[in-house]
């Protein structure tokens, strides 16, 4: 199945490059977007497609712990799980997850465990989860995390400024955070549960993407947009993720740059993860089916993915206590 066509080649005789979309306010019809999102859940993923999809989903996990009571020991357990999600040898093998995501104070612990393993160290920053801090404090938060060894930063936008219509202010803070990342990848959390409407989600997605795009040359996967902190309900939903994927698609059509996507929170079952992969495939194409461009922010999802994967290989369901915690 094909993916998106490269930009500037679509209807060349007509001069359409998609750039005309940039200044248009994209509207979202909530009934039809829900209907479309639900249609992805009707896909039946069986046999090889299921095994491959589950392995892909594992490789896209950002294993996350974001609690006040997090300890170095818990972070080390999480890192160990990230590198080797399942202890016993399997054929096909179980890949490592994409990243471990922690608070800045645990970055050093995580970096020590993960250096050289291919698993990224992600840190929430910018006054996560509320973002209700002065910008200089939030920027300092980013710098500290990067200095401690984080190569991915999950920032939060100022939802207050956004909802008040101060879009320029939100764009400017995103640009400054992106600069403070100094090479670390950036995931921009919109906290869609607080934005409430699909129109807001689309506008915030466009705003975030354009803010980083205007700050310098982007490479594919440098920047992700992300649904949620996991601290607000609802977190990721399929319609919200679809709206964000459509923003990513339209940006690609006008610039050729691939922005990444990370739904976070609320995705707990392997079945639901496969539905998200179907949605990515059918909205953006297979090119996005890589941890470089798509992540799941989750923790409890891991063991259900493993359990279903083992079921496919061994034909038997294992008890949840057969899988290590964290």
């Amino acid at each position, binding site marked *: *199945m*094909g*993916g*998106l*066509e*490269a930009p500037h*080649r*679509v*209807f*060349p*005789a*007509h001069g*359409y490059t*998609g750039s*005309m*979309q940039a200044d248009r306010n*994209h*509207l*979202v*019809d909530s*009934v*039809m*977007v829900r*209907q*479309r999102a639900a249609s992805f859940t*009707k*896909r*039946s*993923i*069986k*046999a*090889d*497609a*299921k095994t*491959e*999809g589950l392995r*892909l989903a594992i490789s896209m996990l950002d294993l996350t712990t974001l609690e006040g009571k997090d300890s170095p020991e818990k972070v080390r357990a999480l890192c160990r799980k990230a590198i080797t999600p399942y202890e016993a040898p399997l054929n096909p093998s179980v890949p490592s997850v994409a990243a471990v995501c922690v608070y800045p104070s645990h970055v050093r612990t995580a970096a020590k465990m993960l250096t050289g393993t291919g698993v990224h160290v992600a840190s929430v920053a910018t006054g996560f989860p509320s973002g209700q801090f002065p910008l200089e404090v939030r920027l300092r938060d980013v710098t500290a995390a990067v200095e401690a060894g984080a190569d991915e930063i999950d920032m939060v936008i100022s939802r207050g400024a956004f909802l008040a219509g101060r879009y320029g202010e939100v764009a400017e803070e995103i640009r400054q955070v992106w600069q403070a990342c100094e090479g670390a990848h950036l995931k921009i959390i919109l906290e869609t549960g607080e934005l409430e409407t699909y129109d807001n989600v689309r506008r915030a997605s466009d705003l975030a993407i354009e803010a980083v795009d205007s700050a310098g040359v982007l490479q594919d996967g440098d920047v992700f947009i992300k649904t949620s902190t996991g601290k607000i309900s609802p977190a990721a939903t399929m319609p919200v993720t679809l709206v964000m994927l*459509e923003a990513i*698609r339209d940006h690609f*059509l006008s610039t050729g740059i691939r922005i990444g996507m990370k739904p976070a929170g609320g995705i707990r079952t392997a079945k639901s993860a496969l539905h998200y*992969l179907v949605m990515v*495939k*059918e909205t953006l*194409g*297979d*090119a996005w*089916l*890589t941890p470089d461009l798509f992540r799941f922010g989750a923790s409890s999802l891991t063991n259900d993915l493993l359990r279903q994967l083992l079921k496919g290989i061994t034909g038997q369901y294992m008890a949840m206590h057969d899988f290590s915690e964290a």
Partner: protein
Amino acid sequence: MKPIAPDTHEHDASPTGEWDYSPAPERTPVKIEESHGLFINGTMRAPKSRKRFDTINPATEQVLSSIAEAGAKDVDDAVQAAKAAQGPWARLKPSERAKYLYRIARRMQERSRELAVLETMDGGKPIKESRDVDLPLAAQHFFYHAGWADKLEYAFPGRNPKPLGVCGQIIPWNFPLLMAAWKLAPALACGNTCVLKPAETTSLTALKLAEILQEVDLPPGVVNIVTGAGDTGAALAEHPDVRKVAFTGSTEVGKILARSVAGSNKKLTLELGGKSPNIVFADAAIDQAVEGIVSSIWFNQGHVCCAGSRLFVEESIVDEVVDKLRHRMQSLRVGDPLDKNTDVGAINSAGQLETIERYVDAGEHEGAIMHEVNNQPLPTKGYWHRPCFFTGVQPSHLIAREEIFGPVLSVMTFRTPEEAISRANNTPYGLAAGIWTNTGSKIFEIARKLDAGVIWCNTYNTFDAASPFGGFKESGFGREGGRHGLQSYVKF
């Protein structure tokens, strides 16, 4: 009008990764008798005509079963059985009639997967659609009308509604079981009895429904099912004891029926063809409008009387819409209708495929540009047509005027609302229309000016038993569904 440029770029730049869905065939077993009789007076019996024909699976061209062809004598038997049953059925306590309808609905639900598989095998539509659309709606139609059976006085207060008598009902092949439900449920609720004639390519689910009618102990003769082709239908419509003729199908046949019924005291409702406009304004939610375009024309291979086969897009957004449509087409999976991931199934018959191909040829011949996203091989057996759309279509082109009844869309543009309305109404048909805009006032303004029986705003091909359906002009007359639909089955 700005012409839409042809696509000169290559199809389908190869993706960097590959993750394709494995086959996911629906495995629910369904028992198909080698040969079928006619359902007359509560029993299955051989046709007196001694004639038979085969019904095939259009996806494989394999013969599924031998079907009886009812001759004039068989039709007469069926009508006489219905006539004899009508008095007692009408005199039955209305709440008792309702119970039968409820039972039919429940039994359809219980056997829904089996019926869906059969519908897909006999007609070629994707199992996803027969399972998620045809079956639930068919059951809903019986549930809904069960509710009306003892409340007819409230539907028509002070008018003392009475049943008509024997109804001759002729249904098409695009939604076989659903159309049977649309016809039978309101007729039975109002105290009529029925002789139903399914389309010749899709008799099997109607005959399976006969099994259900036996299971729920529906009194013999209340519903009779006579299979066959045009001659059987003509014999039914012309039968002197038929009090009401209800037909869903082509405008061509509808006109013949109207002539044959003229001068008799039979009531007639016709639900005929369409060439429905789907209008997308620049202030629409484009991605969702594209979704609506997909369901308006590629739902059920475009074998839909209300298909939005004429797409009118405001000129300023036509490139974006067409571009997104092309992209969206890539994810439409054409193939084995029994695969749960199939979006577009087989064309219902060799004859219909020929018709579609003739129109596509005519479109290209007249200078329109055909677009299809050619990304999957089609099965070698069976009847298939890839979803496609035309740009550079002139209103005078054949593909912009005539009903194709296939997965073929004509894309045209407009600049002002007035132009959209006049072009939308410039057709002999008047069945359905779609409007896409996020401006509430515009919805009402435009909807008022469109000559169509059904107008969908920011959605398309959305159905409900409570919502009346039917057309204007050459799309027919009479309504089905809702309180308006009941009116077609009572006299005052």
